[in-house]
């Protein structure tokens, strides 16, 4: 089975306000507020380039950030969290 590809809503569907190290995120399509910690905003931003599976997403993040060694395990967990919150969906 192919790895699932994920999509995020366009940037104008989200309002982001920094609160110390965290952010308050308002998601317009759901009318819901989330408090998000890194790397959630960074993942949503990377998905603005278009749909991606976990490996592609990691590649995009590596272009911008230094990632830890076991990042490929963690990325899947982060994507499921974002999917459950309705912030990303499967393409």
């Amino acid at each position, binding site marked *: 089975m192919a790895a699932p590809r994920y999509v995020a809503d366009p940037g104008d569907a989200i309002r982001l*306000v920094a*609160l*110390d190290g*965290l952010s308050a995120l308002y998601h317009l399509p759901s009318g819901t*507020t989330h*408090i998000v910690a890194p790397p959630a905003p960074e993942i949503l931003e990377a998905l603005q380039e278009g749909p991606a599976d976990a490996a592609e997403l990691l590649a995009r993040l590596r272009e911008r950030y230094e990632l830890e060694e076991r990042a490929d395990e963690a990325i899947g967990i982060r994507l499921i969290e974002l999917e459950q919150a309705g912030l990303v969906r499967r393409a």
Partner: protein
Amino acid sequence: MRYKLALQIGPVAFRIGSTWRAPLDALARLYAAYPRPENDICDFTVRLEPEKPWRRWLRPSVAINGDYMLPDAAPLPLSMGLLAAEMGMNLQMALGQKRYLLLHASSAEKDGRALIMTGESGAGKSTLSALLGERGWRFMGDEFALLDLDDGRLWPFPRAVSLKNGAIKVMEKEVAADRFGPLIADTPKGDIRHMRPNDAALSGMGEAAKPALILFPRFGASEAIRPVGQAEIFMRLTQASTNYVALGQAGFDALTGLVASCPAAAIDYPDTDAAIGLVEQLWREAA
């Protein structure tokens, strides 16, 4: 409804109807100095009516109904009818208020700027606001603070202060007897006595103020002031709001605006005098 009364409290107008006369007589005495709603047009309706028809006469019990109702609400004995009316108004605000971001907080004003105090029930926010109101501040409300969705100002909601247990004695020492309602003993929340805010609070009930300081008070063994991070302030205030989620983006904009513009701190205090001292100190620092 057989008996009725309309009340204006800050920017909100209520209409209370009752099967019995006594609760509304008590309410009319407590709220004697309050204005009547303009043209009698009310935001919310409260109904005090028998839980079952025969409960009008037989061991009368008051069900708290109205525009908005809670399925699990327990009826109160008729002797606590005044409390039922107060709870009914609170309930309409908690469930139905959508014009303002409603914070479960007490508030007071000085020099045109507002102090907001929120915390767990029993943290003393109600007593503190009532005391400040007798000591040079304008009392704005002991239960709900209303944040304007358009300009971020705070509107007063100065209903009668609901004093519980120990706080009753504290305020009786401070305030003339004619401003108190009857002592309602043994309610589900203990002893309760209502206190009418002073003239300054009532004459200023139409005036909003810009929020200048948010405090999270708590009884503690010793005095302490602790900083609170912005994310925590935001989260605590969403949990102190009954309508944050229902207001959608307007609520988000108003609350993030408040958190960004207003300093905040948590305070621990061993007694009310210490608390007043801490409030005045932090207020001077925030100025």
